[in-house]
């Protein structure tokens, strides 16, 4: 009998392609009883459009987006897969010791006004130093690529970028001025908080319980492989478009570090705390009509699925 299809929308250049490639290569989809159809898309917005217009069943996105859609009566839910990492990058030789030294300096932010790390950073600066980083520095928002270019050229004094861009910055001699764990710590949140995950429509998941279960298992299996096997990384090196070994190793470690290992009650509480912080700083433009974390934002799943490997020591969590 023919196995059901699962249509996955991914960014053509996104890191999720690595995982997809592993699934395909090891025929994990067949193993878990479904067929994976991949639709390459041009931008993050395109994947949102694709999910809304039923062109795909699953996309990779963040839980805030899902929560906000839920507030707009769209029954979407998310299975978290990765945690928030990274932080604020500065050049290695930058004199800045903490965020206060960035006063009147140019700070680039890749994710726009409502970038999670940027909002967390604002909360952190205020809580830790009473420093209004939004108004006392010169933040400018731009596309992630441009941010990297300008950082490397020294036209920006600090920057917040997505992790795989951050990895490149690190490889090119930039350091983290503040890390996300530091920020969370300062905000009294001691657990990992999820960032991205597989989002899908809940009715679809209910109708295709086997498919979604198979898909999640396959995805976790692929992550397990990427987590433990260096040979696998060598195989997919072409996909990472790493320009040199340094970047490649960086990407590898950062990827492993960013994987979510547990999502229990503690993490959920941490997420709720984070939501409160973000809602306070991001305001309406971030959370929209969602005033609280919807209980169905996260897909109810078997917790044992996630407990598959030990947490790596986060080098940046000093």
């Amino acid at each position, binding site marked *: 009998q023919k196995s059901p299809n699962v249509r996955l929308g991914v960014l053509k250049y996104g890191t999720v392609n690595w995982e997809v490639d592993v699934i395909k290569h090891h025929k994990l989809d067949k193993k878990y009883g479904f067929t994976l159809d991949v639709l390459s898309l041009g931008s993050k*917005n395109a994947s949102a459009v694709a999910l*809304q217009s039923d062109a795909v069943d699953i996309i990779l996105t963040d839980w805030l987006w899902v929560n906000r859609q839920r507030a707009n*009566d769209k029954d979407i839910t998310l299975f978290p897969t990765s945690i928030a990492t990274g932080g604020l990058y500065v050049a290695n030789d930058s004199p800045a010791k903490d965020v206060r030294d960035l006063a009147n300096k140019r700070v680039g932010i890749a994710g726009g*006004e409502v970038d999670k790390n940027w909002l967390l950073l604002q909360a952190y600066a205020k809580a830790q130093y009473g420093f209004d980083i939004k108004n006392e520095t010169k933040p400018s928002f731009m596309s992630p690529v441009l941010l990297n270019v300008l950082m490397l050229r020294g*036209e920006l004094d600090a920057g917040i970028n997505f992790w795989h861009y951050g990895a490149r910055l690190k490889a090119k001699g930039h350091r983290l001025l503040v890390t996300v764990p530091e920020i969370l710590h300062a905000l009294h949140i001691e657990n990992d908080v999820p960032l991205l995950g597989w989002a899908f429509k809940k009715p679809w998941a209910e109708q295709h319980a086997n498919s979604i279960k198979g898909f999640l298992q396959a995805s976790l299996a692929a992550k397990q492989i990427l987590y433990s096997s260096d040979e696998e990384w060598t195989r997919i090196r072409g996909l990472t478009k790493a320009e040199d070994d340094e970047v490649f190793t960086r990407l590898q470690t950062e990827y492993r570090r960013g994987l979510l290992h547990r999502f229990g009650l503690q993490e959920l509480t941490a997420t709720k705390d984070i939501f409160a912080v973000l809602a306070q700083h991001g305001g309406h*433009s971030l959370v929209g009509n969602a005033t609280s974390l919807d209980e169905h934002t996260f897909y109810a799943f078997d917790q044992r699925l996630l407990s598959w490997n030990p947490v790596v020591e986060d080098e940046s969590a000093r």
Partner: protein
Amino acid sequence: MKALDDIPKHSANQTVINWPVFVTRLSPMVFLTQATSRWLLSRIATVLAVGVLWQVVAWLVASPDFPSCTAVLSSIHFHLTQGDMLLNLWATLNRVAISFVISMLIGVVIGVLMGSYSQLNKLTDTALIIALNVPALVTILLCYIWFGLVESAAIAAVVLNKIPTVVVMIREGARVVDRDLLAVAKIYRLSPSRTFFKVFLPQLYPFIMASARSGLSLIWKIVLVVELLGRSDGVGFALNTQFQFFDITGILAYTCAFISIILCVEGAIFRPLDKLIARGSAHG
């Protein structure tokens, strides 16, 4: 207009007595010639009709992807009062205005030259087509990379994108200019500038109007992309934020706000120009 009305709210009380005098003075002069007020009414009626139609369709469709007119209106209100819509509109409007003026000026000059001198046209035709077809993304990107992430880079990107389309249009107009009338100018030895402004340009007006109208909209579309890629304010920046969260209501709110501004600009600038130009034409 809503957007702009908000600004002087605080001083409204202070001038409340002078206001009606001012209005009654002004209105018969500028606003309420009969034709103008009829036109204004018809315009408002159209806008209302579009709004009502929209609302009805939204009720019928009843999908979260199709926000109703009232939802959008209340979103506009929200953004005006709580968000920085005014700031963003103002930033975008500024960019649009500056790049519109620059690109129309340069475009008309180049277009006239290319249309008038067929030798020059032959030389630069290929370059024009190349310039016309370089994607906005590429120009914007290169401008930002080469000039840095500054306002002038943004303006330059828009202008570079827009000039070729103006040139193409004006060139076509300059090609069909009536040589007989130019002969009159030559015989009666009008100075080059008089010839240009009094004989040449009036024949280009239809082309200039067409390129100004479509140009304004094109420019604002490019400005959106420019703001998306490297500015920290403006409608494009706001739209992108909305888009990230798939906030269709918010997107439509910004769109409507900007379009209503454009409608005002149309009514205040293009329409009087139109009338001026139509004088003496076959329409009268």
